[in-house]
């Protein structure tokens, strides 16, 4: 089926090798650079929100910066393409590539809004955390040094009254965060320590700076 004249005209012109690369990029649909960058920003933000208290602040700011750049680049490219008669046919033709970035953005925003990353990561790790917590609470010597329990990188595991607590590495900005397992009620609070009940015997442990 032959393409419409304006569409093929702009496509041919946009694909001319003598066009400057930047001009070609600005008049083309999002592709090999912008879409992976949006996906990377989304993964960084989802990873950050999956950790108690958030992940490393520098990685989080990098994710926000990438997302900001993607928005600043995507909106004008889409807006000008929509406003120009020689751009609209290409928006329709490559609609999936144009829709991919906002769909990814909305998906990440929705998952973060409903706290899905944190809930899912904790649910997938709960059995492993509880197994280690029970062992530590009944007298086993906790492993020293960094390691993984479930899907969490853990810096330290300590025995507390009738339970155990895990400090998750690279969390928070100045404060540190982790989990406490205390089946007989809230753990005894110490100075600069706050426990927030999550579910069942689990508490969010915040170790303040």
């Amino acid at each position: 089926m032959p393409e419409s004249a304006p569409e093929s005209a702009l496509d041919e012109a946009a694909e001319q090798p003598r066009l400057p690369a930047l001009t070609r990029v600005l008049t083309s649909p999002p592709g090999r650079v912008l879409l992976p960058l949006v996906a990377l920003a989304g993964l960084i933000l989802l990873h950050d929100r999956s950790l108690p208290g958030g992940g490393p602040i520098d990685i989080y700011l990098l994710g926000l910066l990438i997302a900001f750049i993607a928005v600043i680049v995507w909106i004008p490219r889409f807006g000008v393409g929509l406003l120009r008669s020689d751009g609209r046919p290409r928006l329709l033709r490559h609609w999936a590539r144009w829709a991919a970035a906002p769909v990814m953005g909305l998906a990440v925003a929705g998952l973060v809004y409903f706290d899905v990353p944190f809930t899912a990561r904790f649910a997938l790790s709960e059995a492993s955390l509880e197994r280690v917590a029970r062992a530590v609470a009944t007298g086993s010597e906790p492993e020293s040094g960094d390691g993984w329990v479930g899907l969490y990188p853990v810096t330290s595991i300590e025995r507390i009254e009738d339970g155990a607590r895990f400090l998750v590495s690279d969390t928070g900005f100045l404060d540190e965060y982790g989990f406490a397992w205390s089946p007989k009620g809230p753990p005894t609070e110490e100075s600069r320590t706050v426990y927030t009940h999550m579910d069942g015997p689990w508490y969010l442990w915040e170790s303040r700076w």
Partner: protein
Amino acid sequence: MVRVPGEPGLWVALAASPVLPALFLPGKYVWPVGPLVALAAMFAAVTRAYQDVALIRATQERAEAPEPPGPSGSPPPGSSASP
């Protein structure tokens, strides 16, 4: 439509320029202005890029168009003027 001056690269550089003052100025000044400047500059860059593509296309079409017919009354090449 008014042709956007400058080159797309110039406008993209302007769009990225708010990053520099953002490193030194308080956020209350940078946040309202920086994204607006960046968005406006990117709109200018993309508009100018579309205009460049349209101009190149028009130039190509003029170059590829057949020669216009000569003045009326002149005989077409290859034909005889006599009846």
